[in-house]
């Protein structure tokens, strides 16, 4: 296991709130989207968000028990907690209706398959991987100079040709290429670091390779652009709209060591 992984789990175990926020920021949208999908329209964005909070709160209580050496993916572990939370929510809802007390949703059967025929777990894992890539891009964005990153974003993510990018920002095409190459190199490094940080198995670590991110520059750019196109498209949930300190800060972590 990569040492950074240990550090991240340690940070979570030590109740480092910024580590938990990182987790929430990176994987929260994935979990929310899954709750919304499992609910098949029966649960609204507010409930999805509440359930996501509950998932992370449960995760906080169980983090002490997590053993990365057992070879279980962190994402799989997260999903299993989310499933239990979702099952509890279904039970709660059914208890108040006719036929209450009976289990209306089998957790063993798992959530229904998606329309494209891909098993939900595969789709979930793909989402988790895309979330890691987006986290890496965010990190590069926060550590790069604004102009360089914008050039890369316009050229690679928005797919604008180099000459046009150069015209827009009032520079030459070679300068654009230099900016793009520099950001690409940084992203490669950050991607490796981020995937290691959130991955606990060899299989997870090889995901980048499978997604074409270890290939040549042009293939790497195309793969990143595709992930961005899928992930940063239309929002999957509605905004809260309320002035609040909800979401992250309303999660109540159990005391350290609680079982």
């Amino acid at each position, binding site marked *: 296991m990569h040492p950074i992984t240990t550090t991240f789990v340690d940070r979570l175990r030590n109740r480092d*709130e*910024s580590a938990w*926020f990182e987790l929430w*920021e990176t994987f929260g*949208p994935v979990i929310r989207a899954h709750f919304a999908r499992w609910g098949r329209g029966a649960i*609204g*964005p*507010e409930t999805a968000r509440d359930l996501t909070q509950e998932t992370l709160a449960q995760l906080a209580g169980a983090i002490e028990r997590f053993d990365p050496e057992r070879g279980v993916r962190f994402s799989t572990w997260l999903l299993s907690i989310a499933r239990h939370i979702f099952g509890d929510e279904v039970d709660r809802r059914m208890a108040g209706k006719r036929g209450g007390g009976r289990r209306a949703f089998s957790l063993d059967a798992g959530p229904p398959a998606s329309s494209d025929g891909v098993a939900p777990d595969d789709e979930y894992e793909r989402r988790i991987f895309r979330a890691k890539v*987006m986290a890496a*891009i*965010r990190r590069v*964005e*926060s*550590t790069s*100079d*604004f102009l360089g*990153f*914008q050039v890369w*974003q316009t050229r690679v*993510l*928005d797919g604008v040709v180099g000459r046009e990018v150069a*015209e*827009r*920002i*009032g*520079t030459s095409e070679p300068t654009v290429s230099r900016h793009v190459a520099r950001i690409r190199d940084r992203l490669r490094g950050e991607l490796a670091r981020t995937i290691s940080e959130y991955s606990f198995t060899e299989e997870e670590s090889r995901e980048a390779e499978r997604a074409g991110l270890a290939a040549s520059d042009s293939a790497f750019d195309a793969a990143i652009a595709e992930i*961005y*196109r899928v*992930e*940063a*498209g*239309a*929002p*999957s*949930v*509605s*905004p*809260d*709209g*309320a*002035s*609040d*300190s909800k*979401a*992250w*800060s309303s999660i109540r972590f159990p005391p350290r060591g609680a079982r």
Partner: protein
Amino acid sequence: MVVDPFSPARCALSPFGSDFGVIGTVLAILLGLFLAGVAIMVLIVSVRFVAVAVGRIIACAGGIVGDLITAVVNLAVAPFSLARALVLLVIGRFREADRSAERFQSRIVEVGMRLWSAVVQRPLRIAGVRVPPRRHSLVPAHGPVGPGAPPPPPLMAHRGAATAPPPFAASPRSTVDPPPWPNPAGFSNSFPGYEIEGRLPSGGSGARLFVAAPEPAKQVLLPGTPSRVVIKSFAIGEGSTLPQIIRESRSLDAAKSLGLVLDHALEPHRFWYAMPHFVGPTLTELVGQRHRALGSSRGLDSRSLRELVSLMADVVENLAKFHRGGLWHKDVKPDNIIVSAGRAHLIDVGLVTPLASTFTLTTHGTEYFRDPEMVRQALRGTKVHQVDGARFDIYSAGAVLYSVLENTFPAHGALSRFERPSPESLRWIVRRAMADYHRRYPTMDEMLADLRFVLMAKSPDAALPAQLPSMRGADPASMLEPRLELNSIAGAAPRAAAGAVRDRDAGGPVRRFASRWCGWGGRSAQTKGACWKSTMWSPWATAAVAVVAIAVGILKSDRGSRSHERNSSGNRAVVHAPAAGESTSRATRRRAESTDLPEGSGPVLVERSLMLSNTIPESAESAAMVAIGKKGWTPIVDDAEALAALATLAGREPEAIQAELARRGYRGLVRLEPRGERVHVRPVSFIAR
């Protein structure tokens, strides 16, 4: 000359005769003074009466003219709406026909309301009689205001009545149907000097919101003599908590100085303040309307784009004023922006925070419009003054601009994808505003300069990112103050363009005229070209601003040297406030280095506005408490009441809090009491050395 002591003249000055004379004289003088006093009182009362009467008559006449113009315009336009509805009905486009019919109905209702106002309401108001407005958007408040009145229908006032667009439809603030309001204590919906006309949906803070009309005597005391205000009330008996009240009251004085708050009162069981009342749609609603009108994926046309970007410039300009006043809004989002009379107004000052506050940063705000960096910093326990809160507002302004272009929220922050066609320069502005904390616009002025550059361009698509002032390294002031040079040098069309910028403050017809002829939907290429040329004068503007800046710099350095003299003259000290545009952390460092309030008392020269944690001390009542530490000073709380509240919150005696301060190494507490431009330092309780 010898005076005969027995002569009649001498007898008249005998003891008795002399006393009567003196008493009579004194009485006469007193009577004269009394009569003079009465005369002066009568004169004052008469003058005030005449002034109020003349004021009311002028206001009434102006209002009647406005009402009649609006009524005539609506009456003239209404037949077109009706005709359109009929035509659409005939050709089978029922939904649009229904919408046109609704528009016709609303115009007729508006005509009726305006006539009612012109004929009945306004004339009666001269006599001090206030007739309730016949507005369907306002409902009578429950309880003492309208005993026995039926429960109010769903209310959508203040934030407009239009339906929210689909992406925002889940927003609880735009679809609130408040339940009947319990009023067990019976004290919280009556405000001295105000007549409640209706209530508004409660916001996220849980406070009660009322629409009220100030009584004439109160109205003349309020800035701008508004005919209606919004009152936000927090009552302990109705769910509000003491910390909430303290948080809301923290920036009150500063908010008042910015005109955000008109009036306020802290009473034994509640706290309330009055704000300006704006009627109109929220930016969310307006953006939804504009996007729906053009289809879901076509983006905005040039006219809508110009209108909405112009409103964004209003918002950014307002925020720049906040920041110059030492505050940040903290909850900038489309639902908190009301478009009224063609201008955008920021509402909801509930989270407004002083940039120099020493309180811990909180995560309050609205997801997707709130900078994730702020949440990170809050979780680390960072104090407000240790970060630059203005940059969090800049992020939010970028998010709002994104929502204007995309009609949805930026789900992925700065990486959010643009799905609809929009000018590259505006996308660049969004990304720059939402970039990493250290890489985004350092000030609102720079963002405003970029927006204005796009607004003044021949066409939005013609403005390339490379031409933006922030990219050229231009002084933002050259874009913020272009009118002086343009008015004096350029020709008529650039003058109109400059006028458009200048008259944005007034929102007058010049602005509309200029923006129409020089905007993106402009009529003639010649005029467009002239407007484009106007931006070419920026070097002149830059030069002029540079000259002014140098002059101001010289003056400031002179003041600085004088301050230093005071500082070195014994028991006098200088307290520096953050300069405009200066980051709070830098100001804090400078302050810590330069401030040394000595033990004892002495005058303190206040430079600019002294931001002590929360408030500018304006009167002896709002004097600030300051703890003197080993390294400079640390503001503790606003005033004595706040100190008492702090003690209550902590569940400890004030002495215990002082002991805690001593434990942390503070030398003691002083009280800063304003004396004009100076502040008197008075030790309250020195604990230890």
